[in-house]
């Protein structure tokens, strides 16, 4: 993986750049070696680079001044939220300013009359829910890193989670975004009305991976917590039966709040890891949540139970909250459990049309043999978002490279069956060079022009998302060593 070459002329001006930033944010410039080490990567830790300097603004005006400075002086900018990206979106540059948004973490307004909350970008995803849950509300998107990831980062990545099929991604749960453009101008997109009076620039900015500006304020929708949630676990003798069941549930008109698939290997690893009570010998397991008002949920649960039986599966329903939590705890520990099977692991993220699941799983088994590496699959089955986990041992020569190739082949396979390179982790640096497998040169050029519409000088998060020819730093993938992810306290699903 190659990044643009470091501009030694900028590096030579480091002291002057630090001084200029200190003039803008007197109490928020990190320039010492140990301080900067904290910021040298995001959760894709196989890629790391020490930033030239890190600045931590606490107001939008400071953000604007920093960007004006970067623009005037031609210094690259990399925005960073909490640094939980799994695709290297916040990977710093040796010749660039890392702008960390963690200090802007005030909740500015909670408006129950309009069911929305206005926050600064550094507020964590979970803290939005915590701020409103006493009143029976929550914020729906729930990426697995929600305890740490920031809402500004969620906007940048268009984060998903377990409940996207029913509740959408970040983009479907926003009303407004205030953005500082690369030139320092502050624009407000939408607001409590959600209306923008022109093109849907908010929709474009959401998921733009920090390439178009810095988010300084977000208005999110909050929802009433569903009064009832029930959980079913279904086990199948074959993967194709489970796949057929997922399709049949959807075709029946049921929209589960979550529908998670695990293959036999994943289930076995999880069962030996934290004993959530998964049935032995099953080739595939589904965990299905239904939420809503009591009668809707009963209707959904009875339909799903019947469909599972028709597809040759067996269901167990969680009888109480404790058992629900236990069933889910297994799924949520999938990464950690797989980490016990081998010293190292990488997690991929693609989306496929649901009907392609059996084909994709067969092909992946063949690739696994070809590369001589084990893998398992967890899958947000409701929305077709696949997370293959590839296990390897970095100490064995060549295994890491083989694992990376295996992963890239899986993503190419996703594209081949009509799917995409990434369903929720983002392109970042990790999948950047696979973009031509999904997009034509004309399509990439069009997206490049959209980028230029915001960032003429190309100073904003350069080297991310879009492929390029220039070369310098060799990099790796989401890399888990000794069952330890970066941010090991965060669940990953």
């Amino acid at each position, binding site marked *: 993986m190659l990044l643009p070459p470091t501009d030694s002329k900028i590096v030579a001006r480091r002291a002057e750049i630090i001084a200029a930033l200190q003039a803008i944010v007197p109490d928020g410039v990190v320039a010492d070696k140990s301080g900067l080490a904290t910021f040298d990567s995001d959760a894709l830790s196989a890629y790391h680079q020490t930033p030239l300097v890190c600045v931590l603004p606490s107001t939008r005006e400071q953000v604007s001044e920093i960007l004006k400075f970067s623009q005037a002086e031609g210094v690259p900018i990399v925005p960073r939220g909490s640094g939980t990206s799994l695709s290297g979106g916040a990977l710093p540059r040796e010749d660039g300013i890392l702008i960390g948004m963690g200090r802007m973490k005030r909740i500015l307004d909670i408006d129950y009359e309009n069911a929305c909350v206005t926050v600064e970008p550094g507020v964590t995803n979970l803290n939005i829910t915590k701020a409103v849950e006493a009143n029976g509300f929550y914020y729906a998107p729930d990426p697995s890193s929600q305890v740490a990831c920031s809402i500004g980062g969620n906007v940048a990545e268009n984060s998903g989670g377990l409940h996207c099929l029913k509740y959408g991604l970040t983009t479907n749960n926003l009303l407004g975004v205030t953005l500082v453009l690369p030139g320092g101008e502050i624009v407000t997109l939408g*607001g409590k009305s*959600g209306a923008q009076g022109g093109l*849907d620039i908010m929709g474009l900015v959401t998921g733009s991976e920090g390439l178009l500006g810095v988010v300084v304020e977000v208005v999110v929708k909050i929802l009433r917590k569903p009064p009832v949630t029930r959980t079913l676990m279904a086990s199948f003798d074959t993967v194709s039966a489970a796949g057929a069941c997922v399709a049949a549930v959807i075709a029946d008109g049921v929209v589960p709040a979550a529908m998670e698939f695990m293959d036999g290997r994943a289930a076995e690893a999880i069962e030996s890891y934290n004993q959530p009570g998964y049935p032995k010998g099953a080739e595939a397991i589904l965990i299905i949540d239904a939420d809503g008002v009591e009668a809707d949920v009963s209707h959904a649960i009875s339909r799903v139970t019947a469909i599972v039986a028709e597809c040759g599966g067996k269901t167990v329903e969680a009888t109480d909250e404790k058992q629900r939590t236990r069933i889910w705890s297994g799924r949520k520990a999938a990464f950690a459990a797989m980490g016990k099977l081998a010293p190292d692991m990488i997690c991929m993220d693609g989306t496929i049309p*649901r009907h392609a699941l059996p084909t994709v799983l067969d092909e992946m088994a063949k690739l696994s043999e070809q590369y001589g590496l084990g893998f398992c699959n967890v899958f947000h089955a409701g*929305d*077709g978002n696949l997370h293959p986990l590839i296990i390897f041992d970095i100490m064995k020569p060549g295994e890491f490279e083989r694992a990376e190739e295996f992963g890239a082949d899986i993503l190419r396979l996703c594209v081949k069956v009509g*799917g995409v390179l*990434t369903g929720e982790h983002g392109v970042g640096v990790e999948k950047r060079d696979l973009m031509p497998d999904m997009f034509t040169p004309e399509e990439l050029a069009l997206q490049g022009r959209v980028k*230029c519409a*915001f960032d003429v000088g190309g100073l904003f998060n350069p080297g991310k998302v879009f492929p390029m020819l220039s070369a310098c730093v060799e990099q790796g993938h989401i890399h888990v060593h000794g069952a330890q992810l970066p941010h090991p306290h965060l669940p990953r699903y």
Partner: protein
Amino acid sequence: MEKLSNETQVADFVRAAHESKSPFEIVAGGTRRAVGRPLADLPVLDVSGLSGIIKYEPEELIVTAAPATPLTEIAAVLGEKNQRLGFDPADWSQLLGSNGVATLGGAASADASGSGRLRHGGARDSLLAFRAVNGLGESYRGGAKVVKNVTGFDLPKLVCGAHGTLSVLTELTFRVYPRPQFFAVLSLSDVTPEIGFAALRKIAHSALEPAGLAYLPGSMMPGVGQGAALIRLEGASRPLEEKLGMAHGLLGSAATRIDSDPFAAIGSGEKFAELPGHVWRVMIAPSDAPRVVKELNLQHWLGDWAGGVIWAAAPAHDAARVRAIAASVKGQAMLLRASTDARAALGLYAPQPKALADVNRAVKAAFDPLSLFNPGRLS
């Protein structure tokens, strides 16, 4: 007028137009041509030949169709599988005095969402992918035919509500939603806008997943006294009964079930079709609705989306006042129906702040550098 029937022909046409720097108007069903700033007497690219459902996969929850596919055809085909589009596309032809056929591409381009937008969002929330020809005459694809995708920029968001100013659409893929078996409409009659909108917000913020929440003053709905808060709930038989019970719990026994479905005539704007003057859609934060309707002080209006949009008929001389009221609550007043002259003077929306207007222009230029497509319609 050039009539085309496939993407290759569209690309050829656009390349020729690019070569000769000749802008044109894109027309499918032709029902929304009177929306936005009028186009000078431009040649018409007739894409009505790009019609029909290309692939419908009910179990994948997606449908792919050509842009000129009539909304009625989509609804009928999806209905056979008990599914529907999420954005409740509205046919504005009666309001706009058109005898054309409302199409999928037109509804998405105009982000014409009806009352059901409340439940599943606007067109931008369910357009997963599209094919189109850009202003250089290049065919391209935006998004992907899966329900979860973050690969590259989210271009489907941009083409919704762009009023055909970015590209010539040639194919659209929407996520579809199950269509509940039954629905019921509750009416809380003879209540003031304050009380009515408050009741709607209460339901909006419940777990009832309402599919329509509107307030109509007595001037728009005879027999409801001062006005009525209308609530559309959906579900299978027993769940619907439970929801009705819960709604009664929230609203009290004064809310009564009515047999008609007034919502069909709300999103289409047809209640305003015979009224003189301009027709506005004022998008605001729902809790501002009572204040906004009071300040508008007009006879003919209604509030949909729990108060998030106020439809109003206003005399032409009120235009600046309507825009000012919308701006005072940080809303947007969209001039949906007006004379050619008024649309030329007022535009579809109020002018944006400079930095945002610059971004809009630059994004437009990224797709269509010579401004060939519907030039000025959205400016």
